[in-house]
Each structure stands twice: as structure tokens, then as C-alpha cells.
């Protein structure tokens, strides 16, 4: 078995599960009652953060880019092929060698084959929820969904526990207007992602761009004017502090006001979203598609200090991974060429800029697809086996974790779950995956109920 509950550099739990943080929370709680304003509250919070046990942890990554294949990718045709299985399982594609010894992947991912020596592929990931919504929740929160508590998505956790310097949004989601991916759950709306849309430039369907409307000030609106107006706004807004100021919504909105002002003042976020600053070569390398340019924007955002970026390759980008029919046709003609070009460009580009060492790229969907091919040459939902690819930020290079059985139905060795991968990612970011946070009603909740760090996949 490859699980380990502790690693050498793993810190023993403090006697109180929260250690200093609990006392800090209590102080903040009473401070709130004593009528401290939000700035003081935030200052206390940042002091609590400075004394946070996470500070002492070894931190091997600063940021995460989650490349989300909405609908559930057929990973048996991509990362975990079964060439020796019967026809009705093997499928139409052949495996090819990659630059990582002993790792073979699907023939329609040639660029990724040239990069597998920089990636970890986990082939033994499995869960039991073949439903899009619930499986997405499981994969993106690292907690099995439950009706009693909404767990925060990984991006929201990172925004809460490893926030960036002021001026850049902690968590950005690109191309997910329907908000399929998990929101901040019990952390409250203040930690929801900053959602931006990627679209084609008007009158030019060949050029995709991030919709930066709202991120920049109009030409006749100066930074000074913004500061003046902001001050006036705050003096008019103070009266509202008397109204239910402990409500999450009121508090969350206050945080958004500050973030919005910070973003408008910050040149780096604005510039990061301006894809026209990239050379035509780089833009072409990522692909002049909504997904391609979304990934380029993700890299630029990470460079600008954003901690977590989600890029969804779903219906709104013209990619449908939910291949119940004509699985092989869709994969061969549309899905895999798009993924191969963009994902390889992203990893290569991050590496060339020296960012890959501190940035985790995580490519996954909510589940895999049935090994047995259906009557319409499609594959249906299959959560009991799936493969994901991880690169950078402390993940091993050129490594395959676990395996599935001969027919790809279930893990055969080193099984792991969405909780484990989530805990591993969070651990690399220097966040203790076993720590507790509190819900708005004061209930202590562990970050991950089940997740254990998969030490085999980490350098």
C-alpha cells in the first residue's frame, strides 16, 4: 500500500486540535462582540494567520492550476490504456511510448507523451459516485458530498489558508459561468472564486480573450478618483454595520468591496488578463480557442500572484467530455487534440519560465468512463476507476502511481480517492490537511474527513 498517514517532515498534531488558532478565533469572536470594526477584525485575523501552525510547514508549491474536463473524460483512452483487453474494452486507439520510461499513453496525446517525464499520472484513483454534480463536488472539495454541510472547493480553501499578497484575487475561475465547480461552502461567499469569462473578441471569431470588463477602470476614471469615491462610499456604508453585521453575507460583501478596490488599483492583475501582451507564437502554441486562451490566462494570473486558478474545458468552450455516444470520434477529432495542444503548452511554458517547480497543474474530471463500450460507440459514467495527471510543485516527474486491473474496471494496486489527492495537493501548498476550521455556526470541521497524503507521488 502506498498510503501513509505521516511523513518525515510531517508535524505532530498540537495537543489542542487547533492550537494557537483556536485561541485566536476566540479572541476574534469576543472582539466582534465588543464592537471592533472590520479593519480591526481583519488585523486580528492576519495576526492569527501569522501565528498559524501552517507557517512552519514545508511548502513546496505556491499555486495550483486546475484544468477541469467537465463531463468526465474517458481516461481509459488517454492515460490508462488497456491494449490487451478484449475489443469491447480496448477501444480504437493504440498506446504510444512517452519520454517517461515504462509509461505509455493514448496515441492522440503525442505532445503530452513528450512531456510525461515531467508529470505524475495517478491511475488508481477511484470513487463511487457516477453523477456529474455530486462527483464534481467530491473531486473539487476532497470531501464526499453530504447534505448536512457544503464543503469548500480546494481553491476556496487555498484562498482562506494561503492567501496571496493584497491586490491579486486569491482564487480565479475561468470559463465556468454556470459555476459547476464547487464554491466556498462553509467558508462563506467571501472565498468564492472570482469568475471571469473567456470569449471571442467581437467581430473576430479567431481571437479569444478574457472578458476584462469590470477589472479595469474606464479611461476617464482615475485611480485618485477611485480612492476618493471609495472613501466616500465607506463613510456612507458605516451605518450598515449596525444591521446584522455578523451575517456572512454582509461580511462577505464587505470583503468583496475591498477586494474589488484592490483589484482595480492593482496593475498586475489587469495586465495578467490582457492576453494581447503575449506574442502571437505563445498564443498560437496554447491554441486560439476559449480553452487554450483560458489556460494562457491562468499562467499569467499565477505569475501575477494568484494562488488558485480553475480553467474549465466544458460545453461553453465547445468541448463535451460526456461522451455517451461516438466516444472515439469525439476524442480523436476534437477533445484530445485540444487537450494535447493546450495542456502540453501550459506545462512546457510554466517549466520554461521556471514556474513549474512552484505551480501544481492538475488535470482531472469528475469521473472516468465505462471500460465496456456501449452500443453507440460511447462510454458511460464510471467512477470506480479513473486517471488524473499532475505536474509540478513537488509532484514526481515521470511517475505512474498505481494501476487498474486487466479490464480497467477498478484499481489493482495503490488505490486512492479524491480525498487523498486533495490532501496531497493542500499539503504541498504548506497547509496541514488534518487541521480543523470552523463553520459559521462555530462547528469545528476537519479540512478532509478521509484524505491522506499520498507520499509516493511526491518528491
Amino acid at each position, binding site marked *: 500500500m502506498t498510503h501513509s498517514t505521516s511523513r518525515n517532515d510531517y508535524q505532530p498534531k498540537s495537543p489542542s486540535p487547533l492550537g494557537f488558532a483556536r485561541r485566536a478565533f476566540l479572541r476574534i469572536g469576543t472582539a466582534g462582540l465588543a464592537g471592533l470594526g472590520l479593519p480591526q477584525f481583519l488585523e486580528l485575523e492576519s495576526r492569527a494567520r501569522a501565528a498559524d501552525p501552517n507557517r512552519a510547514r514545508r511548502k513546496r508549491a505556491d499555486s495550483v492550476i486546475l484544468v477541469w474536463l467537465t463531463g468526465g473524460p474517458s481516461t481509459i483512452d488517454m492515460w490508462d490504456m488497456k491494449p490487451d483487453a478484449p475489443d469491447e474494452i480496448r477501444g480504437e486507439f493504440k498506446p504510444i511510448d512517452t519520454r517517461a520510461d515504462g509509461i505509455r499513453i493514448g496515441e492522440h496525446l503525442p505532445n503530452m507523451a513528450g512531456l510525461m517525464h515531467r508529470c505524475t499520472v495517478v491511475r488508481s484513483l477511484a470513487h463511487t459516485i457516477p453523477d456529474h454534480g455530486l462527483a464534481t463536488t467530491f473531486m473539487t472539495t476532497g470531501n464526499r458530498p453530504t447534505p448536512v454541510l457544503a464543503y469548500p472547493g480546494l481553491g476556496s480553501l487555498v484562498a482562506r489558508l494561503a492567501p496571496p499578497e493584497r491586490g491579486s484575487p486569491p482564487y480565479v475561475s475561468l470559463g465556468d459561468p454556470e459555476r459547476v465547480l464547487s464554491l466556498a461552502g462553509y467558508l462563506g461567499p467571501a472565498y468564492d472564486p472570482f469568475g471571469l469569462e473567456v470569449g471571442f473578441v467581437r467581430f473576430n471569431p479567431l481571437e479569444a480573450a478574457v472578458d476584462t470588463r469590470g477589472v479595469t477602470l474606464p479611461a476617464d476614471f482615475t485611480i485618485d478618483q477611485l480612492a476618493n*469615491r471609495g472613501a466616500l462610499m465607506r463613510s*456612507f456604508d458605516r451605518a450598515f454595520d449596525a444591521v*446584522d453585521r455578523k*451575517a456572512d453575507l454582509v461580511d*462577505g460583501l464587505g470583503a468583496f468591496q475591498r477586494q474589488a478596490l484592490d483589484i482595480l488599483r492593482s496593475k498586475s492583475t489587469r495586465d495578467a488578463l490582457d492576453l494581447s501582451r503575449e506574442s502571437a507564437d505563445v498564443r498560437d502554441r496554447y491554441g486560439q480557442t476559449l480553452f487554450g486562451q483560458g489556460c494562457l490566462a491562468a499562467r499569467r494570473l499565477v505569475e501575477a500572484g494568484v494562488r488558485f486558478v480553475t480553467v474549465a474545458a466544458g460545453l461553453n468552450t465547445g468541448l463535451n467530455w460526456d461522451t455517451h455516444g461516438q466516444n472515439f470520434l469525439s476524442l480523436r477529432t476534437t477533445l484530445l487534440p485540444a487537450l494535447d495542444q493546450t495542456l502540453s503548452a501550459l506545462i512546457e511554458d510554466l517549466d520554461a519560465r521556471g514556474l513549474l517547480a512552484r505551480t501544481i497543474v492538475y488535470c482531472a474530471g469528475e469521473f472516468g468512463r465505462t471500460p465496456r463500450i456501449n452500443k453507440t460507440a460511447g462510454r458511460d459514467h464510471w467512477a470506480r476507476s479513473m486517471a488524473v495527471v499532475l505536474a509540478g510543485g513537488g509532484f514526481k516527474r515521470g511517475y505512474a502511481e498505481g494501476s487498474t486491473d486487466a479490464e480497467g474496471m477498478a484499481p489493482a494496486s495503490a488505490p486512492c480517492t479524491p480525498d487523498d489527492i486533495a490532501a496531497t495537493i493542500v499539503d504541498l501548498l504548506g497547509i496541514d490537511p488534518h487541521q480543523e476550521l470552523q463553520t459559521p455556526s462555530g462547528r469545528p470541521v476537519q479540512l478532509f474527513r478521509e484524505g491522506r497524503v499520498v507520499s509516493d507521488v511526491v518528491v
Partner: protein
Amino acid sequence: MHPVDDFSLANPPSNERLLDALAKDFVESRFDIRHIEHVILNSRVYQLSSKTNETNRLDKVNYAHSYARPMMAEVVIDVLNSALGASERWGSEVKEGSHAIELGISDTGVPPLGENIMYALRRFGLPQRSSACDCQRVSAPSVAQELFLMTDPGLLKKLGSGRGRLPKLLAADMTDDQVLDELFLGALSRWPDESERRAFHDYRRKGTDRRAAFTDALWGLINTREFILNH
């Protein structure tokens, strides 16, 4: 019921007896919508204040007091227009001055809706009509919404547009205090308090341009939490 239009076994009401009583009353009134509105709006619970007292200030569930909540996308458009004294052009098929909430707008992205208004509606959670129920509607604040209120070019234009509230007030023979009162009443339905008055006068003294100072004040008002939350 939450969400309000999802009546199903999977989504039980939070207070079944209350819902049953209201249903019974609705039937007995021969399905009189005005009547049931009257009953609900006049109920003690509906009229609870969002201001808390010593005994309920920590309560966050069960409606011990009213809770601040976000408004629907259509209502956001309407309250913005109302505060700015502006109106929306909905195209030739809809009477000018109609409220967004009256229209049953779909996110189809086609005329008569201009791009501007669709963008705003989406930002504030109007779902794309990709399923039969309204359950995709996200009514939660976001940074993107704040940014919209602060920087949207269409909205900024309305702030000082010729037909709006502010230019009319500035053209009338009114003192600064009277104009400020009108802006507060238009945006927040209340008078400014002393500290707010003082804040504005201090601000006004710093600059020379009366119009700019009031434009900034109106911008400040529509960016307060008090304005954008239903409380």
C-alpha cells in the same frame, strides 16, 4: 421553500404547517393573489427588522430577525435605475420604463436586450435557460458584481446622464443638503445622518466642482452594502 420554485419531495419546506396554512388560505380566498400577498406582507415575521437586539443578535437561522439577503438580478437592474432616475430601453416591443422584473427575461443574448443589460443580469445571477427550473439562479454576491457596480461604463454613464436624477437636482434651485437628501432617499430610502452629512461636506470642500462631488456621492451610495442588499 428554497429555492422557491422547486416544489418536490426532494425539497421539503422548512415549515410545512405554515406552508399548508397559507395554501389553505389561498384556496379559500379563491386563489386571490392580492389577498395572499396582503397576508404575507402584513405578517409579523415578514415585517421583522434586520436590526438585532440583545437576545437575537447571534441568531443566524429560524428568523429570529430578518436577514440581509441579495436581490435577484432583475431587481438589481430596477433598483439601480430607480436610484439613478434612469430607465431602460427594452426595444420597440416593450413599453419604455418597464421594470426588468416585469419582463421575464431569458438569457438568450438576442435583441431587444442590449448587450449591456444582459451582461449585468448574468453578473447578478440570471441563469442561462438551459434547464426547465430556475434552480440554476445563483443569488450570491461576488467580486465581479462589486466590480460591475464600481466600473461598468454603462452604469457610470447613467450616473450623470441628462435625463437622470442627479442633473435634474443640480439644475433645480436647491442647497447641497437638499440635493444630498434627495440622493439618499432615492438610493437608500432614508435621510443621511449627521456623520454622513459631515463626510460629504468635507468632501465637497476639497473639490471645487459641485457636479463631480455629487456624482462621486451617488457612486458611493450605489456601492454601499445597504443599497445592494435586501435588509
